[in-house]
C-alpha cells in the first residue's frame, strides 16, 4: 500500500477512535455518577448508556489494534488499502446503527446482548433488529479486513513459518519469523474464529427473530457462542496491541529489534489454542454445562494468559534492564500499559478460578479487572502508537512537553477509578446495577469516588487527544 494512503487511513482511524473514546468515557462517567447518586438518570437510560459504552469500547479498541497492526504489517508484506477502507466504512455505518438503536431506540440488553434479552422487547421494536444488524455490519467489515491481512501474510510465509514452528528445537533457523508477524497471525486467527462464532450467533438469533416463534434457540448454545465471540475478541484485541509493542518498544527505546525464540514461539502458540477455550469460564454458573468443559475453561484461562504474559514481561525486562533507554511518551505509555495488562490479568485469573468465581461472579470485580487491562493496558498500548504515529507521519521531532504531568494525571485518574471497582467487587457489590439498594451504602460512595477519578482520567485523555488529533488531521488533509 502506498505510504501516503496508509498514513491517511491510519490517521482517520485514530481521530475517529479518539472521538468515540471520549464520548464513551463520558457515558461511563454518567453511569458511575448515577450509581453514586450524584446525578439521576432512569434505569433504561443507564442500561442504554451501558450497552452503547460497552459495544463502542470493545469495537474501537479492536479496530485500534487492527489499524496499528495493518500499519506495521506493511513493513513485512503488501497489505490491501481497499480492505482497510472497507472496514472503515462498515465500522462507521455500524456505529451509526448501534448508537441509533441504543440512544434513540433505547435498546439496552448490554454489550453481551445475552439471549433471550434482545427478544424481551422493552424498547422500540425496530431497535432489536437494528442492534443485531449493527453487529452484523461490524462483523462483515472486520471479517474482510482480517482475511485480507492473513492472506497477505500467507503469501509470503508458509503456515509453519508464520506460526514460528521452525523455532522449536532450533536456535537459529533459516527463516526467522519476526515476533510481530507471529503475534499478529496468532491474534488474527483468533479474531477470525470469533468472528465466525459471531456469524453463527447472529444467524441463529435472526432465525428466531424472523421465524415468528416457530424456531427457538437453545439458551446454553447461544450463551456459549456469545462468549466465544465476546470473550475471544476482547482478548485478541489486547494481543494485537502487544504485537505492536514487540515491534515498536525496542525501536523507540533505541534498542535492537526483539527476536523470536523457542519460548516466545511456544508461549504464543499455546495462546492460540487455549484462548479459544478460555471463554468457558463465563459459564461456571450454568449447571447444565458439563463439568469437563468447566475444568477446560479454568485450565485454558491459565494456559492462554500465563505463558504469553510471562514471555512478554521477560522480553520487556530484557530490553530495559541495565540498558540505556531513550524514554519518551511512547515507550512510557507502553511500559505502564504492560503493568496495567499484567495487573488486570492477575485479577482475571483470580476470577477465572472456579472456587473464587463462586464469590466474584457478576460482582464489580469483573468490570474491575477488564477495565484494568483495557483502560490502563490496551488503551495505553494504542495511545502510545497513536502518539508515535502522529509525530512520525508529520516529521515532528520536537520533544514532548508536559509528558510527566500528562502521564501522572492518567495514572492517578485510572488507578483511583479502578480501585473503586476492585474494593466494591471484593465486597461483593453486584455489577450492572443502575443504582444500589439500601444496605449497599459503601457501594454508592465508591461509585461517586470512582466517577470523580474517571473525570481525572478523562482530563488526561483529552490532553493526549488535542495534540494527537491535531497532527493526525494534518496528515489527513496533507496534499498528495
Amino acid at each position: 500500500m502506498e505510504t501516503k494512503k496508509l498514513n491517511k487511513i491510519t490517521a482517520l482511524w485514530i481521530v475517529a477512535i479518539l472521538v468515540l473514546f471520549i464520548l464513551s468515557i463520558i457515558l461511563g462517567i454518567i453511569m458511575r455518577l448515577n450509581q453514586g447518586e450524584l446525578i439521576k438518570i432512569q434505569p433504561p437510560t443507564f442500561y442504554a448508556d451501558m450497552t452503547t459504552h460497552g459495544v463502542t469500547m470493545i469495537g474501537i479498541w479492536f479496530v485500534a489494534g487492527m489499524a496499528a497492526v495493518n500499519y506495521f504489517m506493511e513493513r513485512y508484506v503488501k497489505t490491501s488499502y481497499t480492505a482497510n477502507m472497507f472496514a472503515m466504512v462498515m465500522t462507521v455505518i455500524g456505529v451509526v446503527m448501534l448508537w441509533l438503536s441504543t440512544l434513540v431506540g433505547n435498546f439496552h440488553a448490554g454489550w453481551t446482548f445475552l439471549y433471550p434479552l434482545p427478544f424481551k422487547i422493552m424498547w422500540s421494536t425496530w431497535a432489536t433488529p437494528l442492534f443485531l444488524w449493527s453487529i452484523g455490519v461490524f462483523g462483515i467489515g472486520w471479517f474482510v479486513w482480517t482475511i485480507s491481512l492473513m492472506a497477505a501474510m500467507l503469501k509470503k510465509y508458509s503456515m509453519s513459518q508464520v506460526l514460528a514452528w521452525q523455532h522449536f528445537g532450533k536456535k537459529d533457523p533459516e527463516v526467522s519469523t519476526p515476533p510481530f508477524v507471529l503475534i499478529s497471525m496468532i491474534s488474527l486467527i483468533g479474531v477470525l474464529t470469533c468472528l465466525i462464532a459471531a456469524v453463527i450467533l447472529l444467524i441463529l438469533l435472526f432465525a428466531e427473530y424472523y421465524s415468528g416463534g416457530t424456531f427457538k434457540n437453545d439458551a446454553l448454545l447461544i450463551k456459549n457462542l456469545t462468549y466465544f465471540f465476546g470473550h475471544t475478541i476482547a482478548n485478541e484485541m489486547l494481543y494485537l496491541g502487544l504485537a505492536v509493542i514487540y515491534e515498536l518498544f525496542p525501536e523507540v527505546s533505541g534498542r535492537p529489534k526483539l527476536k523470536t525464540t523457542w519460548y516466545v514461539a511456544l508461549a504464543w502458540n499455546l495462546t492460540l489454542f487455549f484462548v479459544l477455550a478460555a471463554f468457558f469460564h463465563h459459564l461456571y454458573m450454568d449447571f447444565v454445562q458439563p463439568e469437563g468443559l468447566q475444568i477446560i475453561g479454568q485450565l485454558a484461562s491459565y494456559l492462554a494468559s500465563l505463558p504469553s504474559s510471562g514471555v512478554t514481561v521477560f522480553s520487556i525486562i530484557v530490553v530495559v534492564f541495565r540498558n540505556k533507554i531513550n524514554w519518551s511518551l511512547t515507550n512510557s505509555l507502553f511500559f505502564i500499559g504492560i503493568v496495567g495488562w499484567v495487573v488486570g490479568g492477575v485479577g482475571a485469573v483470580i476470577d477465572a478460578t472456579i472456587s473464587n468465581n463462586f464469590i466474584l461472579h457478576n460482582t464489580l470485580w469483573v468490570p474491575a479487572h477488564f477495565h484494568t487491562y483495557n483502560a490502563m493496558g490496551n488503551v495505553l498500548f494504542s495511545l502510545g502508537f497513536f502518539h508515535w504515529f502522529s509525530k512520525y507521519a508529520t516529521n515532528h521531532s520536537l520533544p514532548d512537553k508536559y509528558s510527566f504531568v500528562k502521564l501522572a494525571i492518567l495514572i492517578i485518574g485510572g488507578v483511583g477509578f479502578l480501585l473503586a471497582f476492585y474494593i466494591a467487587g471484593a465486597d461483593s457489590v453486584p455489577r450492572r446495577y443502575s443504582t444500589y439498594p439500601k444496605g449497599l451504602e459503601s457501594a454508592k460512595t465508591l461509585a461517586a469516588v470512582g466517577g470523580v477519578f474517571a473525570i481525572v482520567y478523562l482530563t488526561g485523555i483529552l490532553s493526549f487527544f488535542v495534540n494527537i488529533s491535531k497532527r493526525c488531521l494534518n496528515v489527513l488533509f496533507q496534499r498528495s
Partner: protein
Amino acid sequence: MFKRTFSTLLIILLISNYNSIANNLYDKQDWREEEGIYTRIYDAKIKLISGEQTSIHQLAAKKPLIVALVFTRCAGVCNPLLLQLKENIQIILRKNQYKFSVLVLSFDPLDSLKDMQNLAYRFNLLNEPNWELAVVDSISSMTKSVNFFPVWDMRKKQYDHDALLVGVNTQGYITKKLIGLRSADEISLLISDINNVYRPSYRLPTPANMFTCFNYDPKTGKNTPGWGLAFIALPALLTVGILAFLRLRGKYHS
C-alpha cells in the same frame, strides 16, 4: 415445469410450517408450568376456615405458600391431589427445614366457608399447623393470575381442571408451579424455591428447539449431547479450512 416448481414450493412451504404446526399442537396438549413465573399472584381477599379475614399477599408475607386449587364437590383430581400432598408434606417435614404453609383455596363460587371446614375435617387437616383452607373473593382474577382455567362441564356437573400447585414467595411472586400429581422430591424443590433457594431445573425440549447442546430426558434423568454442540466446534473447524485455502492461494499467487 409448472408441476416441478409447484411441488418444490409445496415442499418448502410444508417444511417451513412444520415447526409452527408442531408447536401449536404441543401448546394445546400441554399446560405450561413456566407460564406466569415471576409474576405476582392476584392479591385476593380470603376468608380462612378459622374465620380470620386476610389476603393472599398478607398470608404469604408470614410464610411462603403452596397454593392448591380445589372445589368441594369435586369427584375428580382434587381428592387425590390433597391426599397425596398431605402425605408428601409429612415426608418432607421430616427432612426439610424451610418454612411454608399450604393454602387450599376453593375456585367454586358455590363453596361456602362451611364446605371448606367440612373438607378440612374430612382430610383431618383441622389441627395441622402448616395448612390453611379458605374461600376467596375474586375467584376469576385469582385463577387468571396463576393461569388456571377450569371449564364447567354441564353434563357431569363438574369442573374440568388440572391438578395445580402454585409456589408463592413471601413477596407474592409465583416462583414455581407443578401440574399433575407430583412426588415428594418435586414438592420439596418447590418449597426450596419459594424460600428463594436456587434449584436447578431443566427445560423440556419442544419441537421449536432444533439445535440444543444437551437433551434432558426426564424419564431417565440423563442428559445426552445434542446437535447444538457442533456449532461450538464449527468456528474452529471453519478457521482451519479458511487458513488452508488462504495458504494454497498464497502459494499459487507467489
